[in-house]
């Protein structure tokens, strides 16, 4: 099998997509956002509960979509719980670089390693949007309270 395919659909990704973490709605979310990829019809909804200290107390997602978009959402929620909003944005910046095959600079080694399972997407330009959907939606949720993005 093609190496880039193997990297794209590595076990961690498939596991996230088959058994998504933090799946389902969140009661008492302080922020929600909806994302939609009009090309494939995929959707994701992000729920966030942000404390007064600017820390993400809880985060979850709902949606349907391809393995990449589901795994990305699952991974993201897994990594963001407990972080500050500022940290979330830094992570997102790094992630966006990573999936475009650029250097993820500025992330600490552990975060980089965890995000790195998605790096295989960079060999599949048509799939980058699948990987970033959840992140963009998370960002617009934080910015707009309730937002729509694509």
């Amino acid at each position, binding site marked *: 099998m093609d190496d880039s395919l193997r990297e794209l*659909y590595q076990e961690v990704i498939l596991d996230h997509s088959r058994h998504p973490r933090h799946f389902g709605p969140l009661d008492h979310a302080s922020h929600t956002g909806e994302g939609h990829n009009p090309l*494939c*019809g995929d959707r994701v909804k992000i729920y966030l509960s942000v404390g007064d200290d600017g820390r993400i107390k809880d985060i979850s997602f709902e949606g349907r979509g391809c393995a990449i978009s589901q795994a990305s959402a699952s991974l993201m929620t897994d990594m963001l719980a407990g972080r500050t909003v500022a940290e979330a944005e830094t992570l997102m910046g790094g992630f966006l670089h990573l999936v475009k095959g650029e250097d993820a600079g500025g992330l600490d080694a552990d975060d980089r390693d965890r995000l790195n399972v998605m790096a295989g997407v960079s060999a599949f330009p048509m799939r980058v949007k699948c990987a970033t959907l959840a992140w963009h939606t998370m960002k617009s949720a934080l910015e707009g309270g309730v937002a729509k993005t694509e």
Partner: protein
Amino acid sequence: MMAQTKATSPAFVPPRGDFEILARPVHGKPLAYLDSAASAQKPRRVLEAMEAFATSEYANVHRGVHHLSAVATQRYEEARETVRRFLGARSADEIVFTRNGTEAINLVASSWLAPRIEPGDEIVLTVMEHHSNIVPWHFLRERDGAVLRWVDVADDGSLGAAAVAEAIGPRTKLVAVTHMSNVLGTVSPLKAIIAAAHARGVPVLVDGCQGAVHEVVDVRELDADFYVITGHKLYGPTGIGALYAKMAHLKAMRPMLGGGEMIREVTRDKITYADPPARFEAGTPPIIESVGLAAALDYITAFDRAAVKAHELSLLSYARDAVRPFNWLRLVGDAPAKGAILSFEAEGMHAHDLATILDREGVAVRAGHHCAQPLMDRFGVVSTTRASFALYSTREDVEALVAGLEKARKILG
């Protein structure tokens, strides 16, 4: 299954040599281009016709007295005649060149139907329409108060003429129906639909963007009021489509776009319009593309079209048989009247993941909603994977698809 490859000598030999692109490997694998329903590849002679025209006969049309302009005008009008012949229209004046099939449908919506819509008037359409045969009617709903009446298809994707007839009421102003679904492959019972609509005094628009590729069209025999084609699916260039409309309808239509070529007289305070088809061709038309489209239609009609169709359908049934053992695969659309399109859902595999894996095997299929969201809703799916066949498709293409599906199942399943 692989053993069947060389089984029988086919009645129709796919003219692979005419399509250079088909011989180019993708990701190091032979290309199995199974995305012709999205857009067909172009045979060498279409590209040559355009190039020859551009390098020896090109000028703007209609407005010029000089030689090149006269020749270019002649070629452009010959292309119109070629389309007329292809569709069986009475007169070349009933053929309007547009930018694609979508514009042709919009032209009918905005120039013919919009001025005739009173709030509450109805447009009948089917759930298997392409967005291009949905959105223009939604505009009339949003802007003019039209009501959309949706005709369902059966679970196998069949469309019944009776279901369409039933949807037609006293306020129905138009029936808009596809000749062939770009997802299900379903071929509509056009004659019965048109007869039923006409019996109630309702005109019918046929979206032939897919249908005209695979079926022989005779708009007069069908008695279609409007029939739409798009160049790039007919092995022709992008940038051109055409509307056939009965002359009486064209005469009753106001222009949609204003500009050069479509006027009779313009003064500061007044304007009068040219007769059809010029009235609907504002500005410089797709001249080079018209030459390419004519070459494409000549290319198609030079084949025994029944043999082409039989060839395509034999690939469809070859594929259908091959995937039958895959109990994790569900066909979407399996009507008895069906063209060479295979859409399916694969359990546990999202269409995009599947298409990505197939692509690495050189197999080009389409994944998504295929611009047919209401149909996706009807079948309770978000998207499907679609393989579509053309005259150049082969059993090897099908085999690559089937092998790719098995691989994908291993990776994702």
